[in-house]
């Protein structure tokens, strides 16, 4: 799953909307352009919401996928 070594990792498992998106956005404030955030989550809504968040904010979704119940995604800070 891991393509790039992330600068920040988050555990969002057990959290429901809107917390995952809020936590990712808060973490992004501390990142530099080009940095990568990797997170795990369990709410299936994340599979739709994180790509939508990346499109809205203009950041790059590197990967997102689910294995069993754990969703893993990587986002790179572009803006």
């Amino acid at each position, binding site marked *: 799953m891991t393509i790039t070594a992330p600068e920040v990792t988050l555990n969002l498992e057990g*959290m429901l909307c*809107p*917390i995952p*998106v809020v936590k990712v*956005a808060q973490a992004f404030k501390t990142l530099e352009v080009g940095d990568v955030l990797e997170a795990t989550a369990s709410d299936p809504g994340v599979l739709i919401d994180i790509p939508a968040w990346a499109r809205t904010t203009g950041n790059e979704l590197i990967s997102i996928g689910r294995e069993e119940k754990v969703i893993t995604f990587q986002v790179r800070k572009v803006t």
Partner: protein
Amino acid sequence: MAQALTIPTPDEQMGEIPQVAQKKISMVVFSGDMDKAMAAFIIATGAAASGLQVTMFFTFWGLKLIQDGNRTGSSVYGRAMGAMNRGGIDRVGPSKFNFLGLGRWMFKKMMRSHNVASLPELREMATDLGVKMIACQMSMDVMEIPKETLIPEVDQVAGVAAFIEESQQSNSTLFI
């Protein structure tokens, strides 16, 4: 003649506003129901997390969500209203299945067991994300809710023109 007129280009009209203007969303929070307040704060936090500038305009029953929970009212009616419709984000109940407060208790329990953020947590998150909260002056006057009984996170007490100005600059406006 039309040629003689110098029509400013959109850039000139915009003046010093930066090229990429931040997107905005504004909402009227009219309801003091727990479920509708959840929707309002979830949209507000989600929008702010997505980089939008968010303004929430609290009016009528919605004022309960930004009151500190102290008693309000100066006249007999105002005091009665302050007692029967006491403010505070912890006191609001769902629009259905409240059953004199039993529903509120049940909803809170269910939300906790599903790990959903509570209303006070959502409001705190909204503040942290820079969501602007405006209280409606007119409904505060009518319901005799002094500014001192609002939570300090409230940015402004204003009227309809202030809201219209915000909504004019917004990409979408919601009434909840």
